[in-house]
């Protein structure tokens, strides 16, 4: 029932398809964790929608429930209130049309890079033959610049390379939703910028609808079409910024007046979210 819809609208349209239904729809989601000191609300009335092929970045103060959000979209947990819809279907549990990558690349040390990338296909039913699957894995690895590392073990790769491999694993089963939970957070600045560009290259060749959780405002406007700012805990949707330049960008685009203005707006919003803003401070 799920796989029928796969790939329908993924054919290359990276812009916001006019009139198309939103692929990810988060409606009035509330969630609280049960702790010894009573319920701890983390999400409170969250509203996010991502159109087919869209790429939304979610930023907010630390501990505001961003990772909870990814687990909700992935169907790993259920919200106390509200609904998460994917492809016009309410999410009730994990779905194989989702790909995930975390800050920790969690590659399996006992497998080669190629075998690591192929892992999801051992779980998800796939029409690909063994040979086709391997070819696809090799293609993805070459797309992220890991050609020639197929037979290496994760321990032989640098942090950035492992994250690239993890990205390939998230994409191997052609998911239509890619959830990225601070995937570049642990990398050094140059490696991170490298991976940003890789992301644009990947999205051109392997279109997906993306949700990116990040702490890095520059990253959010470089990669996403839309940036959602969450308030401090419990998190609400506080502000939504539309990034004017959608599609592939260059690093130079980050050093324009427009980018500076956007970053300033976001920074100001984050300060509000952290509860330590005054109007004057943010605009400085």
């Amino acid at each position, binding site marked *: 029932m799920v796989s029928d819809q796969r790939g329908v609208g993924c054919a290359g349209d990276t812009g916001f398809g006019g009139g198309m239904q939103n692929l990810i729809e988060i409606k009035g989601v509330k969630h609280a964790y049960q702790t010894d000191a009573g319920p701890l609300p983390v999400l409170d009335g969250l509203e996010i929608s991502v159109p087919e092929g869209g790429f939304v970045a979610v930023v907010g103060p630390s501990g505001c429930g961003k990772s909870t959000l990814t687990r909700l979209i992935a*169907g790993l947990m259920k919200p106390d209130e509200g609904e998460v819809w994917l492809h016009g279907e309410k999410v009730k549990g*994990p779905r194989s049309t989702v790909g995930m990558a975390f800050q920790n690349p969690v590659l399996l040390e006992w497998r080669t890079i190629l075998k690591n990338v192929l892992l999801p296909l051992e779980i998800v039913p796939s029409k690909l033959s063994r040979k086709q699957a391997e070819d696809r894995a090799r293609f993805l690895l070459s797309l992220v610049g890991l050609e020639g590392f197929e037979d290496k*073990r994760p321990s032989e790769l640098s942090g950035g390379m492992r994250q690239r491999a993890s990205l390939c694993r998230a994409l191997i089963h052609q998911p239509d939703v890619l959830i990225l939970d601070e995937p570049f957070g642990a990398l050094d600045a140059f490696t991170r910028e490298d991976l940003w560009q890789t992301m644009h290259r990947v999205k051109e060749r392997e279109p997906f609808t993306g949700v990116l959780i990040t702490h890095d405002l520059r990253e959010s406007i470089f990669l996403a079409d839309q940036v959602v700012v969450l308030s401090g805990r419990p998190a609400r949707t506080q502000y939504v910024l539309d990034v004017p330049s959608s599609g592939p960008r260059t690093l130079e685009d980050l050093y324009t007046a427009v980018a500076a203005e956007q970053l300033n707006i976001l920074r100001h919003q984050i300060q509000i979210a952290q509860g330590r803003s005054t109007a004057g401070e943010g605009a400085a």
Partner: protein
Amino acid sequence: MNKHIRAFVVPVIAVVVFLAFWEWLVWFNGWPRFKMAAPSDLPPAFERHWPLFLSMGWQTLWRTVVGLFLAVLFGTLLGMIMGFSRTMRDALYPLLVGFNAIPKATVVPIVALMFVGQHDFNTVLLAFMISFFPIAVSVSIGLSTLEPEYRDILRSLGASQATIFWKIALPKTLPEFFGALKVAVTLAFIGTNLMEIVSPHGRGLGALFDSGRTNSDFPLMFAVLIALAFLGIVLYYIVVALEKIFAGWAERAPG
């Protein structure tokens, strides 16, 4: 010096120096054979009792291996139960720690009395009892400390708990498991010998050792120790070889 030659020659020289010192010590003090044995006494002792060494060595070996095998099965199962269920861990851990704290030498008379005459069973049981603990603990820790992201990667694709266990939890626990197995193999050996020596029943190297003790036959006693050390080393390196095969990936490449 060549690296390989050094790796071989240095230990050999160390052993020779040690044996020479031992020989000298016995010679210098003029100890008779009923007081202490010198290395030169050992080959004749082996020669005199060679058939006994073979048959009793085999008895000790197979009972240790069977006990260890049961310990691996039971320890892994127990570790899985404790690793997956928080409640079971809370329930079983104190029992396990308490059981492990009992010196196993005190268990020998109980077991020997309970199962009178069933020497093979008794010995295997003791080897098992003494060696399952580290395996259970390491497996449970390995499973319970699995980072949630590892689970999520498969769970988000709809994988079952069993799949997650076979594909991720089990292989990820293997290095810890083999670390524990190296400890367990030595412990199982101690268990076998405890039963053979404390409750002698004429079987195993422990019995041979005991007969040497009754006669103050130091060369025989020392020969048994050497034989035990030999078996222990063989078992240990079998575990090391298995570890290389099944968990070799955990070894860091040199440099």
